[in-house]
């Protein structure tokens, strides 16, 4: 299925979870502290990452800190 991750179309296996996308997008080494996820404009709590399954055409935003005023 195709979902949009940070604005880019991404092919994922059926039954993929938010956690799967993070592992792929951040790489397995990268810590997930300082990361937040929005799914279709709503916050996905850290505690829900492993259980939350994605559906075709979902819009996922994976966010982290950036310098800002």
């Amino acid at each position, binding site marked *: 299925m195709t979902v949009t991750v*940070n604005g880019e179309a991404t092919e994922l296996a059926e039954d993929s979870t938010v956690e799967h996308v993070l592992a792929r*997008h*951040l790489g397995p080494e990268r810590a997930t502290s300082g990361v*937040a996820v929005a799914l279709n404009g709503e916050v996905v709590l850290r505690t829900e990452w492993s259980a939350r399954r994605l559906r075709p055409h979902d819009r996922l935003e994976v*966010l*982290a800190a*950036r*310098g800002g*005023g």
Partner: protein
Amino acid sequence: MTGSRCSPREEGADIDDPLVIAGVSFNSRLIMGTGGAPNLDALEKALIASGAELATVALRRVSPAARGSVLDVLDRTGCRLLPNTAGCFTARDAVTTAQLAREAFSTEWIKLEVIADERTLLPEAVELLDAAESLVDDGFSVLAYTNDDPVLALRLEAVGCAAVMPLGSPIGSGMGILNPFNLSLIVDRLSVPVILDAGVGTASDAAIAMELGCDAVLAASAVTRSREPATMAEAVRKAVEAGRLARRAGRIPRRLYAEPSTTFEDLPDLESGPHQD
């Protein structure tokens, strides 16, 4: 609504009093923005030179290739993190961004920014107040970036903001404090901390803010986009301290005509020639 009340910012306030925001004390009254620095190393040096104990960060899409993080810099410099909602145009976006920041950084502090347009970056007052109220209800400590409007500042305090952050002039404009009279009214009428946000172009602007009675100053572009960020950070830090000292000392009134500091009594008679009856 709060009416006139005893201002905690009377001249003569104890100079050693810490800045207290939402129950947390800070010795430094300079808050740093972390945007605009040429690189993380320059930012780190500027943060150290600024003495800041609180610094803002934004939330953006992760770039997997990025090396190093502004979070590591804040960690090393011991700065408490203040996430912002920069780039939000609606209350809904700002509230969602604040919730995302809470998830990412495990803090309920949020510098709330809701802007009206990209050209001026001026606050969108109606959306701002709406977002502030929602976030306070949701348990956030809200530091609200706002116009230099005393009425709106009072409304933000009334809905429970932990601090109110009026602009001196538009973000990144470096135009200083365009309406010192409004800023004085805000300082005089609010009980929560008033933090000058936006518009600082150089050290003297920060000193003026403190002389007007602000509790703290936020500087970002003035430092990070200067030729020597660490040097400017030191200058702004000293200006904040100088301005607070001057506020405590109490400035003399402005006068139209001169007022001699040396008495005219006992002035010698220096007419040429001997005494004549």
